[in-house]
């Protein structure tokens, strides 16, 4: 296990270097003069020259790359062209907002997805199974931005149960300590604000949860069906164990590995879905941060935002792989 962990960590180095290289070349791959494109056609020559210097574009590319890499090692992500503040400082609230949203979405996806899959496998070919699997099929085909809009139409505009967008009630803003609003409101003991935060979370997290939920349900069902055919399940039933325990204890334990893998993969993919969900619900997260940066041609922010998401994505996948090896002793890595 130890040597596998080391090996897996080492194999990350070329991937991370490659990632950085791609992100580094992003800004340089803009056709024409990047500084001119960023500032627009009306910019003066002086302004263009200054930005070129600020971005380090006047030096040979390898010097630029090592400077960039050196900066990354010291935690320097560059400076936003729009706000003029260092990106590594202003990015935290956005990251926290996305983390909170992704966490809630994943909880919803796992609780509903796993249980729907289990019940579908338990009562195979029942009406529940059919309805759940048809919903799961539609779920994986769902553009989440459309689902988000339809949610807003039904629950915010017609029923008026939930707020349309945002993260908090703007008239009673939250004093942020950790940037995780659920935690903040609980620490401050403001239950009124806590409910407000939860209400704002419901629609975006359900929209974001849809696809992972559907995929988790499908995988859980098929692995459960396979496990439930095996001999030890028959034995467990033969000795008169209640079906509930056979399903939720014996079978689930043996079906959990593929399910865990999918959960890990989907957690990483949530980060991609977040950019769409956040746009619809004006959620001030990292996706929204990058999206706004694209509109302002704030390339340092686009670069750093994408790099950070990719690094998180790679890290999650690594953790999943290691967990996978730790949970199942049958898996031997060479």
């Amino acid at each position, binding site marked *: 296990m130890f040597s596998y962990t080391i090996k897996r960590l080492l194999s990350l180095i070329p*991937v991370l270097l490659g990632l950085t290289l*791609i992100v580094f070349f*992003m800004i340089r*791959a803009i056709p024409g003069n990047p500084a001119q494109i960023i500032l627009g056609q009306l910019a003066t020559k002086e302004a263009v020259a200054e930005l070129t210097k600020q971005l380090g574009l006047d030096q040979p590319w390898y010097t630029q790359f090592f400077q960039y890499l050196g900066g990354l090692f010291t935690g320097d992500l560059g400076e936003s062209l729009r706000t003029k503040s260092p990106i590594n400082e202003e990015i935290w609230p956005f990251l926290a907002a996305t983390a909170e949203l992704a966490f809630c979405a994943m909880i919803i996806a796992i609780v509903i997805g796993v249980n729907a899959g289990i019940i579908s496998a338990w009562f195979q070919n029942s009406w529940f199974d059919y309805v759940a699997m048809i919903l799961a099929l539609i779920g994986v085909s769902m*553009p989440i*931005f*459309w689902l988000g809009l339809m949610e807003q*139409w039904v629950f915010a*505009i017609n029923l008026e149960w939930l707020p349309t967008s945002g993260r908090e009630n703007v008239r009673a803003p939250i004093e942020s300590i950790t940037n995780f609003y659920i935690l903040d409101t609980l620490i401050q003991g403001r239950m009124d604000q806590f409910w407000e935060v939860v209400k704002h979370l419901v629609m975006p997290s359900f929209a974001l949860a849809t696809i992972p939920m559907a995929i988790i349900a499908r995988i859980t069902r098929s692995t459960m069906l396979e496990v439930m055919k095996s001999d030890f399940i028959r034995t467990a039933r033969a000795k008169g164990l209640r079906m509930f325990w056979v399903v939720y204890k014996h079978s689930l334990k043996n079906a959990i590995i593929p399910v865990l893998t999918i959960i890990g993969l989907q957690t990483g993919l949530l980060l991609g879905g977040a950019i769409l969900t956040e746009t619809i619900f004006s959620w001030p997260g990292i996706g929204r941060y990058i999206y706004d940066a694209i509109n302002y041609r704030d390339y340092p922010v686009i670069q750093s935002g994408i790099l950070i*998401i990719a690094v998180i994505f790679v890290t999650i996948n690594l953790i999943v792989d290691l967990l996978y090896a730790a949970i199942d002793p049958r898996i031997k890595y060479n």
Partner: protein
Amino acid sequence: MELSTNKEIQVPIEPAEDKAVSPWLEAWRSFRKNKLAVIGTFIVLFFVLLAIFAPYIAPEGINEQKLTASDRLQAPSSEHWFGTDDFGRDVFSRVVYGSRISLWVGFLAVMGSIVVGCLLGIIAGYYGKWVDSVISRFFDILLAFPSILLAIAIVAVLGPSLRNALIAIAVINIPNFGRLIRSRVLSVKQEEYIFAAKAVGMKNSRILFHHVMPNSIAPIIVQGTLAIATAIIEAAALGFLGLGAEAPNPEWGKMLSDARAFLTQAPWTLFFPGLAIVLTVLGFNLMGDGLRDALDPRMKN
């Protein structure tokens, strides 16, 4: 003891052979029995026909603006089945024409990733060694980005347009096909008939095209069908973010982002383009799942 003198005895060299069918026919038979797959195929066919005959089906063009109050944002009626948008354009006609863009982008992008992915995958798998390492690392790096984010990054660099969205979608799907073909090549490479072909003196290129490629077609078709589904969603997502089709193109994702401001007043301008996306994608997904079960049962889950 006398040996049999009966020369008429014929040993049947081949057993009753006429029942053996080609694997493709067998796959077709099992596909036909799969109800969901057939439904999916009909949905796809429906949208393909819609795209081909769009000028005959759509009552109006894509950009016939009528800016009077009695024409703008009209609810669905017998005259305008899906209502009208804020420029007084017929939403039904735009959705019908939109199928052309979505299917075209989905198909072309996936074809692009198949061609490039297969080429890289074959080279990696067949030549091995450092070539394989370099190409495989390249796939790893592409897969280290959440795919839609990589697409956004590519379009952010190239500039927003439908063509660049198509390129971005093609690029992000390359590693999926590349890896698939690479593993196929690696397993086929160990087969005895490849050794035989080499012994006979067949050239590498001929071995690749005569033996390796035909062995990889089934999984490519399956993966390709499913990839079209995601490509359509990705194209719509880019359009929605303003990074894809330009106005007045009736791209479904773009239609959604244009109509967003009218969610309260005219929800139909948002409902129908989205429904079209869901149905098309569902069709391709059902068809792909069915093809997988029929062509390559090992790929199941």
